[in-house]
């Protein structure tokens, strides 16, 4: 089962919920940090890493001795990643989306596939919990292919928890697509609610059942709960603001280590999620 943890707004507590849920469930669980731009879960899990690999994507490399400057590669490329200017052909590898069009279209077979590093993936573990994250190379724009690579480590038989990036565009979709459940972590503030609505919209397009965790639940106003009630989105857990929790978070400590009574609450959260996933599969998938 895949549970993806998303939010819309950043800094609402996705990583806190993902890491504490994963640690509470213990062995046989995978935690995949798909926030490859700013991965943070390892700062709380403190995994022992045993494997690291560079992830690359295909980009054009031109053999100028074969190129006759016909310009077909520049014509097919939608991303302006290869152009013929005067007597040279210029690939702009940073702009390439790796569609393979230029290689396919080149009549002289002058283009072969080189590689551009997207970032790296690290695989590790802590007490039977399997941990995988990706780190986007500084200056690299394209997160989704690296996210998909992190997700390729998901085992069908395991509980896989995904820590998604903030927002609602392509990296978030890449982190939620194909999940059995999306757990949305939000806060009862105008920014939290506004961005939650966008995230709910994205989850709706994907047709995945979802539920809410309200963090800092005693701050802000009531509009979030009114919205959740009106939309029929279940509130599965509330975490009140606690300065001690915030301070221990700042040091990279897990909530369930500082306040052990929360472990039971995270296990209950998991029970509620499995019930909702069961219900959704019985009613044929789509909730809401």
């Amino acid at each position, binding site marked *: 089962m895949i549970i993806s943890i998303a939010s*819309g*707004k*950043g*800094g*609402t507590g996705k*990583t806190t919920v993902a890491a504490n849920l994963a640690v509470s469930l213990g062995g046989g669980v995978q935690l995949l940090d798909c*926030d490859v*731009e*700013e991965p*943070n879960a390892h*700062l*709380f899990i403190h995994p022992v890493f045993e494997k690291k690999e560079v992830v690359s994507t295909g980009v054009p490399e031109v053999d100028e001795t074969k190129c006759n400057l016909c310009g077909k590669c520049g014509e*097919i490329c*939608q*991303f302006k990643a290869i152009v013929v200017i005067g007597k040279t052909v210029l690939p702009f590898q940073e702009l390439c*989306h*790796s*569609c*393979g*069009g230029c290689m*396919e*279209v080149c009549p002289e077979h002058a283009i072969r596939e080189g590689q551009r590093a997207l970032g790296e993936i690290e695989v590790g573990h802590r007490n039977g919990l399997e941990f995988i994250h990706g780190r*986007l190379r*500084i*200056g*690299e*724009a*394209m*997160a989704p292919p690296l996210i998909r690579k992190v997700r390729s480590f998901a085992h069908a038989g395991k509980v896989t928890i995904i820590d998604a*990036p*903030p*927002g*609602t*565009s*392509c*990296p*978030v*979709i890449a982190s939620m*697509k194909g999940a059995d459940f999306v757990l949305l972590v939000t806060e009862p*503030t*105008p*920014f939290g609610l*506004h*961005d939650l609505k*966008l995230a709910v*919209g*994205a989850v709706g*397009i*994907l047709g995945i059942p979802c539920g809410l965790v309200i963090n800092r639940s005693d*701050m*802000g*106003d009531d509009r979030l709960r009114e919205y959740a009630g009106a939309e029929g989105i279940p509130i599965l857990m509330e975490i009140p603001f606690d*300065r001690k929790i*915030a*301070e221990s*978070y*700042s*040091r*990279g400590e897990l909530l369930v280590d500082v306040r052990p009574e929360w472990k039971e609450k995270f296990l209950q959260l998991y029970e509620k999620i499995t019930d909702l996933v069961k219900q959704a599969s019985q009613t044929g998938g789509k909730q809401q």
Partner: protein
Amino acid sequence: MKELVIISGKGGTGKTSIVAAFASLAANKVLSDADVDAADLHLIMNPQATERHDFQAGHSAVINLDKCTACGLCRDLCRYDAITEDYTVTRMDCEGCGVCVYFCPEKAIDFPLKTCGEWYLSETRFGPMVHARLGIAEENSGKLVTLVRQEARKLAEAKKLDLILTDGPPGIGCPVIASLGGATAALIVTEPTVAGRHDMERVAQLADFFRVPVLVCVNKADLNLDSTCEIKQYAEEKNYAFVGTIPFDPVFTKAMVAGQTVIEYDNHTEAAAALRQIWQKVSSHTGLHSP
């Protein structure tokens, strides 16, 4: 023309609230919201749109099933697995590369331009604002950020305003890269947590990569004073201008609920005083200071 971009790496450190406070304090500026896929600045600025435009970018393949002979070439060529067994294109998976369109022997694939969102020119009580809304689950956020910043620049020139305040997105990927290029300076708003610090370092490296001068401030500073000190030291070692700290204060949430900036809500809080000091340092910083 000067442009200050406010970024953070980590989400939720207070970027938008700080941009809003600066809007209260700065004169002669245009506001621009470059966090196009979860834009929030308008919730405080309450902009009245004077112009609304569709944002069109990229194409999406659409197979005409009347012409399609199900030869399978497009499915073989598509590297994004965006074409299903019954020859429909899953829009969300289509990268818009056009390879299937080019090679289809029956010319059965259309390639219409996509409308991915909207952008607006608006008036606010703090002056003009350019903002946008990327459609949910859409691509091309970087292009929309570039567009918003270009329009902000045009507007500033037309109205003879000398500063653009840009609320940037979290992360270090495509929309952040689009927010940084050509900016006068980037103010990184971080927090004294392991995550805040880790993410600040990555986004600062990105700003270095694009040769944009970095300024650093710490929000919620008293949550971990040791970490705040370490961030200050780090900034000094790297030659980033450290422009101050803001205490953890529920007034940020209260002001947000009231739809006001922290300065408007209560000008006498510690947070408001800290923000005024930071703004003074930021605005007198080399490059942003206009005599």
